[in-house]
């Protein structure tokens, strides 16, 4: 039990005064000293070590009254009040006042049932306002997220640019995009063309034509297995960076992605690095005069199988 304010203080040789103040230790949260008002002879600061017992309204000390009187007088200016200092959780630790300060509960507030009812009603009203908002807000934010796929053929250049077999040649092209209400804009993109020898073609197509389907499963285009031009999407299937055709010390001429160092050969096969699948082939057609057209597709990076997103 903590000594209370106003408790009588009794020494070995009789009562000497009452507890006028209590001093806390800010670190341990314990009462460290009592300040005893010495029946008109000033105040003395008594350490808790000198306290023998603490009862409801009496504090008994081990010392005699003359010993207590010899203690130095209490210095108020060495202390601040509880209101002027931040000590976490002090209210939970201190029980030294001889009583409580109370405020009456208003008459209308004494019906406990109604309080609970109103608390629940508050939550219900909150839900009534909030829940109907969830769907519209989500739809509002999701508006541009799932655009339909576009299977237009884009002209990207002429095969005259490709001089050597089994070498990656970059074709830059512009693609128009229309976002939301904005006017149509052009963005620059690129694909890599390879004029493949039959061995590379065999590696790519493995003797079968390659069919491209849209989301509904309808066939969009078929790349014939003996058509020598391959078009690779410019997006690295590892994490979506842009790869390049580079000379590698050991592997020779390869596609190299400078981001995470995935390396692919001319057929798009992964030679080294973290990529989970070969480069993505695009639908391609080459006209008699060498004009190249592709369908601009992009696939989700980082997955073993292809998921088309553009």
């Amino acid at each position, binding site marked *: 039990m903590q000594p209370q304010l106003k408790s009588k203080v009794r020494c070995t040789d009789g009562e000497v005064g009452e507890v006028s103040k209590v001093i806390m*230790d*800010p*670190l*341990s949260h314990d009462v460290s000293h009592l300040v005893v008002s010495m029946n008109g002879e000033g105040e003395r600061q008594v350490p808790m070590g000198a306290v023998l017992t603490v009862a409801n309204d009496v504090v008994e000390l081990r010392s005699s009254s003359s010993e207590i009187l010899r203690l130095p007088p209490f210095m108020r200016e060495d202390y*601040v*009040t509880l*209101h*002027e*200092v*931040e*000590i*976490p*959780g002090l209210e939970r630790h201190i029980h030294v006042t001889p009583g409580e300060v109370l405020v009456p509960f208003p008459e209308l507030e004494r019906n406990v049932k109604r309080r609970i009812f109103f608390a629940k009603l508050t939550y219900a009203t909150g839900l009534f306002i909030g829940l109907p908002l969830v769907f519209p807000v989500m739809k509002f*934010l*999701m508006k*541009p*997220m*799932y*655009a339909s796929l576009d299977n237009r053929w884009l002209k990207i250049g002429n095969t005259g640019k490709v001089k050597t077999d089994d070498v990656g040649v970059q074709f*830059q092209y512009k693609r128009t*995009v229309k*976002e*939301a209400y*904005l006017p149509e*804009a052009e*963005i*620059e*993109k*690129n694909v890599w063309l390879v004029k493949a020898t039959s061995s590379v073609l065999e590696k790519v197509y493995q003797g079968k034509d390659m069919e491209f389907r849209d989301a509904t499963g309808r066939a969009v285009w078929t790349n014939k297995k003996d058509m020598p031009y391959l078009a690779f999407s*410019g997006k690295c299937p*590892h*994490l*979506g*960076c*842009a790869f390049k055709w580079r000379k590698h010390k050991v592997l020779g001429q390869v596609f190299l992605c*400078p*981001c*995470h*160092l995935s390396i692919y050969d001319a057929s798009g096969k992964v030679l080294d*690095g*973290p*990529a*989970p*699948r070969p480069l993505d082939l695009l639908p391609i057609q080459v006209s008699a005069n060498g004009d190249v057209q592709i369908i601009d597709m*992009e696939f*989700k*990076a*980082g*997955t*073993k199988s292809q998921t088309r*997103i*553009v």
Partner: protein
Amino acid sequence: MNDTPSSGAQPTVAEKVFTFVDERVGLKLLAAKMLNEAVPGGSRWAYVFGSILLFIFGMQALTGVLLMFYYVPTADHAYASTQFILHDVDYGWFLLSYHFWGSSAMVLCVFAHMSQVFLWGAYKKPRELIWLVGLLLFAIVMGFGFTGYLLPWDQRAYWATTVGVEIMDKMPVLGDFMARFLKGGATPGQMTLSRFFVIHVMVLPASLIALAGLHLFLFRCAGPAGPFRGTPTELKAKTDYFFPRQIWKDVVGMAVVFACISAMAFWEPVVLLEEATPDPGDYHPEPEWYFLFMFQHLRLKMFSGEFGQFLGSIGLPSALGIMLVLLPFFDRDSERNIFKRPLALIGWVVLTASILLFTVSAIINRDFLD
């Protein structure tokens, strides 16, 4: 209370205003309560990082608001308006560069702050909630970095975002939705810029202010942990209040950080790369330095293939995050001395060393790309 005794002289206008406000809101009491907080074991330089972070955030908010006077968050104006700030607006180069280097300072100080709390064992009971809210704040700071550097709309911005969002896409179940949600479509464009802008200038600052407030409130509820060595008597003998010694150290720390950021802004002002396009030309995409270690470790052979990549980009970082969240609940030993917690010490050293190692190797790797 220590009301000043009336000296007989007429109060000045300032004193009258102060008294007017004090009577209504209890200013003196509030100030006393704010400043008279016992710091067990006394003030220390190691405790300055929290205050410094608050200071850096304040400066980021200030410079950020100033930048918005000229910056236009649209795909066809973002780049030009940023260049305008850099080259035409008086001191624009300084404010933008301060904002840029401020973000680096923020990441460094967050790391220092978290390390201090970790090494001092200050996350332990009863301070678990402060730690948890702190982790959320850490995530917000990284979010600031990630959303911030898309805004200039240059090549670095575009590619860092492309890769960053692809990484997010690897999250199980929610990944695809999250990636599209952030991009506002399948590929980065105007919708992405709008979204990142709103997140950077509204959502994250609001969350940070709210959570930092909660962080401080919880800190005040639990009180400072103090040093991990020393008997109660020794601690008590060295204990002082937050004001003036700790505040003085904090202020010196802020001044040093301010000087460093200003110096960096002055000597290494922001230079934009070319305007963003889905065709990077000769540019080798690379994220900001504080994401470099992540970028570099994804190059490892062990993180190849679909599963390896999931492991490297989502699995490991999440595992680390979950470990940090659970830390105060598993580590229930009340021992706070780091030299008596070998596992914690080794863990911290290994993590810090590997972050350093991967960052440095990413930088060295640059030379081999051309």
